[in-house]
C-alpha cells in the first residue's frame, strides 16, 4: 500500500493548489487539537523507529501509533490516560506496544497545539486520489503554554491505487511551495522546549574512547556516565514511575563498584574506597525492593503455571505488594537522605574531568594497555573456573562463576568503544547467553529460598489457606526443576563460551598481538 509523505509547508498554502485543481480540491474546516508525544524514559519507541501520540480534541482522546512495519498509522480511541502498554485493551496496539515498551511506563516527553485542516484531491470521476493534512504545530511547555515557533507541514496520504495520480499530487504540492523534507521534526522541537532530546538517555555507559587516553581520564568518564545514569533515575524511583528506574539505578551502581574494584590504583584511593563502600550501602538499601519487583513481574507467569489454581496465590501477591510498599519507603528514604547526597557529591568529585590526580603510575598509563589485559584476565579466570566444575555443577559454583561473568561483562561494556563493534557485539551476545544460564540458575535458587520464607510469613500471620501454601510449594518445585535444567545446559553453553573459536577472538582482540 502507498505510504504518506510529509512536506514542509512554511511557504505553502491551499490558494496556489486550489488555482491548479479548481473544484477537484475539497477543503474541510480547520480544527484545533493537543498532541502529546509519548515514549519510555529510555526511548524504546524512538530507538525502534516508532511513534506514539495522544491526540485530544473536543473531549475525544485517541492514540496514534506509527511503526516501521506498518505503512499507515493505527488509531485507537481511549477513555483514559494510558501509562503502560498493559493498560490497553487486548488488541493490535497493546501487543505492538508491549513488545516495544515492555514494563516501562509511557511518559509524555513533549506536547504541541496543532491546528489541522484536511482536504481531498479528487479525480475527474469524483474519486479521492489523495487526502491532504495541513498542520501548524506549536510546541507547548510544561504548563501547556505556547513555547516556540510553529512548524507547518502538509502530509499527502495517497488514497486508492493509482500511483500516477499520487505522484501528480506530490508534484503539484512542490509546485505550490511545499518543500521536501521538513527541516524540523515537531516532536524533537517540542521535546527541546522541555529539555529533552529523543535518544538522550540510555542505561548503557556512553563513553567515546581512544586507546591512548590516560586511564584515570577514561575511568572518570565511565564513572561520570554512570553517575549521570543514577542521577537521571532518582526521580523515577521516588515517584515509582516504573520498576526499571530502580533497576537502572542499581545496575549503574553495580557497574561503578565493579569499575572501582577492577581498575584499582588509577583514581585517588580514599575517595575511591569511600564511594565503593557507599555504593555497597545503596545496593543493600535498594536490593529488597528490586527483588520484590522481580517476583511481582513474575506473578502472571506464576498464575499461568498454576492454571486452575491461579487464584490460590492471591494472598501471596498481597503479601508481596505489602512488603514492596515497605521496601519502597526504605528506598525513598535512602534516596532522600543526606548520606545519598554526600555519596553523589563524592562520586561527582571523583569523576570530575579536572579532579585530583593520583600519583600512581597506573593513572597515566594509556587505557589501551590496561583494558585489553583486564578483559583477557577476566575471561581466562572464567574459563579456568568453569573448566573445574563438575557436570552438572553445584549451585554455589555457578553463583561464583556468575559474579565473574558480570565482571567480564562490565569490562566489555566500559571499554567496548576501544574495539571493533562487530567483534564486541558477538562477544557480548555469547557472554549474555552464558550469563542467562548462570543468572537463571541463581535466580531459581534464591527464589526458592525466598518463597519458603514468604510461605512462613503467611503461615505466621495465621490467615492463610492451605491452598496458598500448597500452590507456593508447586511454584518452588517448578523452580527447582528449572534450576536443574539450567545446570544441565551449563556444559553445552560453557563449551561455546570457552571454545577454541571464542578463545581465539579474545586473544586476538585483547591480547595485543
Amino acid at each position, binding site marked *: *500500500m*502507498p505510504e504518506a509523505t510529509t512536506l514542509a509547508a512554511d511557504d505553502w498554502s491551499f490558494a496556489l493548489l486550489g488555482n491548479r485543481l479548481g473544484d477537484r480540491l475539497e477543503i474541510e474546516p480547520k480544527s484545533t487539537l493537543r498532541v502529546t508525544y509519548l515514549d519510555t524514559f529510555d526511548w524504546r519507541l524512538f530507538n525502534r523507529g516508532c511513534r506514539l501520540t495522544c491526540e485530544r480534541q473536543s473531549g475525544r482522546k485517541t492514540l496514534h501509533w506509527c511503526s516501521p512495519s506498518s505503512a499507515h498509522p*493505527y488509531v*485507537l480511541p481511549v477513555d483514559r490516560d494510558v501509562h503502560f502498554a498493559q493498560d490497553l485493551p487486548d*488488541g493490535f496496539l497493546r501487543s505492538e506496544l508491549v513488545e516495544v515498551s515492555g514494563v516501562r511506563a509511557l511518559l509524555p516527553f513533549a506536547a504541541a497545539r496543532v491546528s489541522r485542516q484536511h482536504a481531498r484531491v*479528487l479525480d475527474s470521476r469524483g474519486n479521492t486520489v489523495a*487526502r491532504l493534512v495541513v498542520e501548524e504545530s506549536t510546541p507547548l511547555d510544561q504548563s501547556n503554554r505556547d513555547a516556540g515557533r510553529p512548524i507547518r507541514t502538509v502530509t499527502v496520504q495517497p*488514497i*486508492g491505487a493509482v500511483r500516477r495520480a499520487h505522484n501528480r499530487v506530490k508534484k503539484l504540492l512542490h509546485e505550490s511551495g511545499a518543500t521536501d523534507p521538513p527541516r524540523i521534526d515537531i516532536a524533537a522541537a517540542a521535546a527541546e522546549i522541555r529539555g529533552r532530546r529523543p535518544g538522550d538517555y540510555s542505561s548503557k555507559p556512553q563513553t567515546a574512547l581512544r586507546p591512548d587516553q590516560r586511564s584515570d581520564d577514561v575511568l572518570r568518564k565511565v564513572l561520570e556516565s554512570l553517575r549521570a545514569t543514577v542521577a537521571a533515575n532518582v526521580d523515577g524511583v521516588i515517584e515509582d514511575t516504573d520498576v526499571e528506574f530502580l533497576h537502572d539505578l542499581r545496575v549503574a551502581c553495580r557497574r561503578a563498584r565493579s569499575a572501582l574494584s577492577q581498575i584499582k590504583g588509577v583514581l585517588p584511593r580514599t575517595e575511591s574506597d569511600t564511594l565503593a563502600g557507599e555504593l555497597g550501602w545503596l545496593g543493600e538499601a535498594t536490593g529488597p525492593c528490586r527483588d520484590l519487583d522481580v517476583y511481582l513481574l513474575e506473578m502472571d507467569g506464576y498464575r499461568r503455571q498454576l492454571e486452575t489454581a491461579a487464584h490460590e496465590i492471591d494472598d501471596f501477591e498481597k503479601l508481596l505488594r505489602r512488603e514492596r510498599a515497605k521496601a519502597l519507603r526504605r528506598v525513598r528514604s535512602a534516596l532522600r537522605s543526606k548520606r545519598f547526597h554526600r555519596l553523589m557529591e563524592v562520586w561527582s568529585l571523583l569523576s570530575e574531568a579536572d579532579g585530583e590526580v593520583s600519583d600512581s603510575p597506573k593513572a597515566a598509563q594509556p587505557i589501551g594497555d590496561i583494558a585489553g589485559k583486564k578483559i583477557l584476565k577476566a575471561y581466562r579466570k572464567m574459563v579456568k573456573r568453569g573448566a573445574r566444575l563438575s557436570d552438572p555443577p553445584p549451585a554455589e559454583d555457578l553463583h561464583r562463576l556468575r559474579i565473574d561473568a558480570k565482571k567480564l561483562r562490565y569490562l566489555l561494556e566500559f571499554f567496548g568503544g576501544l574495539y571493533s563493534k562487530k567483534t564486541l557485539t558477538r562477544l557480548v551476545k555469547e557472554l549474555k547467553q552464558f550469563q542467562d544460564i548462570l543468572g537463571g540458575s541463581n535466580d531459581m535458587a534464591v527464589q526458592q529460598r525466598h518463597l519458603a520464607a514468604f510461605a512462613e510469613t503467611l503461615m505466621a500471620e495465621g490467615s492463610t489457606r492451605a491452598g496458598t501454601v500448597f500452590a507456593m510449594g508447586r511454584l518452588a518445585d517448578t523452580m527447582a526443576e528449572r534450576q536443574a535444567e539450567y545446570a544441565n545446559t551449563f556444559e553445552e553453553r560453557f563449551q561455546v563460551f570457552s571454545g577454541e573459536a571464542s578463545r581465539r577472538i579474545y586473544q586476538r582482540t585483547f591480547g595485543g598481538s
Partner: protein
Amino acid sequence: MDTLAVWTIKGGVGKTAASVNLAHAAAMSGIRTLLWDLDPQGATSYYLRALPRLPGGVETLLDRSLDLIQFVQPSEFDNLFLLPADFSYRHLDIALEEGAKPRKALAKRLRPLTDDFDLVLIDCPPSVSAVSEAVLRAADALIVPVIPTTLSMRTLEQVRTFVTTAGKHQPTLPFLSMVDRRKRIHLDTCEECLADDGFLRTMIPSASVVERMGVTRAPVAATLPSQPAAKAFGELWREIAERLCIGPGMG
C-alpha cells in the same frame, strides 16, 4: 482476524449502506478493518470514493500466487481499508466453479491477511450462488439486513435454511433495516422480529441521510455524526462486536 459477511438474497435492503457504515464504525473503534467489496455493482467502492476496479479482475481475485494485500487500498478513514469491486465479479460464480475446491477459494485468499487486519467485512452480491457458498465458508458470522416486511422475513428464512445446509454453523445475525416508524406494517413486523432473540436489537431507520450517501460518498457518521441513523449504525456495530466478542473494548 474475524470475517463477517453482510449478505442476503434480496436486493435493495440496505446491505451496502450497512457494510460501509458498520465497517466505518468498527474502524473508528480501533479495529483494523478491511472492507471487501465483492458486489460487481461496486457501490461500496463508490461510497468510499474509490475506483471499483481490481487490476486483472476475477483472475487476480482467485490467483493464489498473488497476495491480495497488494490490491488493498487505504480509505480516507483511520484503520479502514478497501479491497475494491470489479465489474468482472459478475463472472465470479463461473470462475469459482471452474477452479478447484470453489467453496474454499475465498477463505484461502483471506488467510494471508490475518496479521494485517482484525476484521474483514465482506459486502456480498445479493444472490444464492457459488459466490455465496464461498463467502459462507470464509465468514465467521453473517450479518443479514431485514426490512420489516413479509417478503423480507420470508427471505430471512431462506437465508437461514441455506446457512444450515451450506454454512459452517456460524452465527447468523439479522437486523432490522430501513425501518419506517410511520408504517404500521413495519412496526408490527419489528415487534414480531424482536421477539426472536437471534435478531440484533438495534434498528436502522429509513433515513434520507443514508440515501444521501450516494451524494456525500462517505459513511453517515463521517458527515453527520449526530444524525439518528449514524448513531444507530454505531450502536449496531457495538452490539455485533459484543455478541461476537470482537475487540478492542476501550473507547
